[in-house]
C-alpha cells in the first residue's frame, strides 16, 4: 500500500513538473544581467514566453552542456570558445557590451596613477591594499584573473580576500573592508546607493570592455535567438537599458554576426 501511494505521489510530481516543463524556452544568463532586471525587461518585449535563470558563466555553460538551456547569455571568451569546441552545432553571436570598473575607497583610488587597469592592479598589490575577489567562475572573475596575468603580479596573500559570492555580497564586503574589487558597471550602478566606493578612471580602458555573447544551444530556442540578436532585440535592449538604468549600460552589438 505504501508503495502504491509512493508511486501515485511521484506520478503527481512528474505531472506537475511536466505541465510547466515541456515547451518553454529556457534562457541561462549572467547573474548581473538577470538580477538587475535587464534580461526580464528585454524578454518582456518578445512575443513568446521565455524563462530566465541567472548564474555565473561557468554555471550556465555547465547546465547548457547538459542541454538544460536553449539559449545562454554569457561573458567569458575563453569559456565560450571551449563550449563551442565541444558543441559544433551551437551558434554564437555578439549580444551587447558593457564595461567593468575597478572600484575602491575614494581616498585610496585617487592615489592610483596607473594608465591601464592591469597597472592599477599591480599598484594595489604592491601597496598591499585589500582586494576582494569573487572567485566563483563568473565572467567578472575570469576577467579579473586575466588582468592579474597582465599585471605581472600574483594575487596571493593576506590582502587578497575571496568571497565565492555574487557581486552584491562581494561589493558589500569590499565596502566594509575599504578594499578594491572589479565589478560590472550595471551591478555597481544598482548597488551604488548603499556603497561608499568610487571607480578608478583610466585614459585607456580597452581591457575593461565586457562583451556578452548569446549562444544558441538547442534548436528549440532558435526563434528567440534570432529575435534577440536581430534588430528588434537590439531595440528592445536599448529600451530595457533605459527602463532599468536610465542610461545605456549594455550597448547592443552593432553587427551581431561573429
Amino acid at each position, binding site marked *: 500500500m*505504501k508503495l502504491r501511494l509512493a508511486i501515485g505521489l511521484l506520478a503527481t510530481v512528474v505531472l506537475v*513538473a511536466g505541465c510547466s516543463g515541456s515547451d518553454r524556452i529556457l534562457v541561462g544568463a549572467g547573474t548581473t544581467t538577470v538580477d538587475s532586471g535587464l534580461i526580464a525587461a528585454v524578454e518582456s518585449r518578445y512575443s513568446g514566453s521565455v524563462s530566465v535563470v541567472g548564474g555565473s558563466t561557468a554555471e550556465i555553460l555547465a547546465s547548457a552542456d*547538459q542541454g538544460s538551456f536553449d539559449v545562454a547569455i554569457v561573458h567569458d571568451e575563453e569559456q565560450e570558445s571551449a563550449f563551442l569546441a565541444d558543441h559544433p552545432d551551437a551558434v554564437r553571436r555578439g549580444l551587447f557590451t558593457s564595461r567593468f570598473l575597478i572600484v575602491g575607497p575614494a581616498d585610496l583610488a585617487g592615489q592610483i596613477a596607473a594608465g591601464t587597469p592591469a597597472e592599477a592592479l599591480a599598484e594595489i598589490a604592491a601597496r598591499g591594499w585589500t582586494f576582494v575577489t569573487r572567485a566563483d567562475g563568473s565572467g567578472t572573475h575570469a576577467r579579473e584573473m586575466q588582468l592579474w596575468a597582465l599585471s605581472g603580479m600574483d594575487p596571493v596573500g593576506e590582502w587578497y580576500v575571496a568571497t565565492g559570492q555574487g557581486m552584491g555580497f562581494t561589493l558589500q564586503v569590499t565596502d566594509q573592508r575599504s578594499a578594491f574589487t572589479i565589478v560590472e558597471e550595471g551591478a555597481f550602478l544598482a548597488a551604488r546607493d548603499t556603497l561608499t566606493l568610487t571607480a578608478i578612471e583610466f585614459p585607456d580602458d580597452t581591457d575593461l570592455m565586457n562583451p556578452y555573447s548569446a549562444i544558441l544551444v538547442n534548436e528549440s530556442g532558435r526563434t528567440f535567438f534570432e529575435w534577440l540578436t536581430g534588430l528588434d532585440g537590439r531595440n528592445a535592449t536599448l529600451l530595457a537599458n533605459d527602463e532599468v538604468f536610465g542610461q545605456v549600460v549594455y550597448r547592443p552589438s552593432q553587427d551581431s554576426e561573429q
Partner: protein
Amino acid sequence: MGFLTDVVGEAFRYVADFGPELREILALTLVVAALATAIGVVLGVPFGVWLGLSRFRGRGIVMAIVNTGMGIPPVLAGLLLLILLWNDGILGSWEALFTPGAMVAAQALLAFPIAAGVTAGAVRNLNIDAREQLSAFNVSPAGRGWIAGREVWPGVAAAVAAAFGRVIAEVGAVLVVGGNIEGETRVLTTAIVQEARQSNLGAALGLGIVLLAVALIVNLALTWAQMRGEARV
C-alpha cells in the same frame, strides 16, 4: 543608525504594500512547501512508526541514517536531484529541471527524514499500553495506523511542523533545482538571496519578515492543535 532605520522602514513598506509580485512569491512558497511536507509526512510518518516499534538488527544504523538525513544540507539534496534531472541524468527525460515539481521533490527529500525521525522518537516515548496495542498480532495494518494516529498524534503534529519549518526556510535546494525564475520558481528564500545580491536590503528584509510570519502562523496552529490533542488524552 540612519541606514538601519531606512532599511527597516523600507522593509515594512514592502510588506505593507503586499504587491502582486510578493503575493505570487508567497503563494508559490506555500504550495511548494505544503506539497513537499505532505509527501514527506505521508511517507515519513508510517516509516517512523515502523522504525519506532520494530526491533531488528541494524535498527541503530537506520536510526543514525535517518538522523543524519534530518541534517542534510539542502544544497546537497538539490545537487543530488540536479544530477538526476540533468538531460544526461537518469531522470533527464522528465524535463523537470527548473520547475516547481523539481522544487517539491527536492524539499520532500528534506522533509522525509525529519518526519520519520521525529515520529520514530515520539513512538519510542509512548507508554507501554499503547505500544502493546500497536504490536499486537491481531491488529490489522489499518487498525494499527489508527491506534498510532491516536496515540502519536502530538508527535506527528510536531513532525509536520518541523518538516514544514525546514523546507520553507531552506534556500539551497530550491535555488539549485528551481533556478529562481521570476513568476515561475521564485520563492521567499530565493527572492531574499536575489534582493540581497542586488543590495536591495529593504526588500530582502521585508521578504524575511513575511517568511517568519508564515512560519509563526503554521507553528501556532500546530501547537494549538497539539495542546488540544494532549488535553483530550
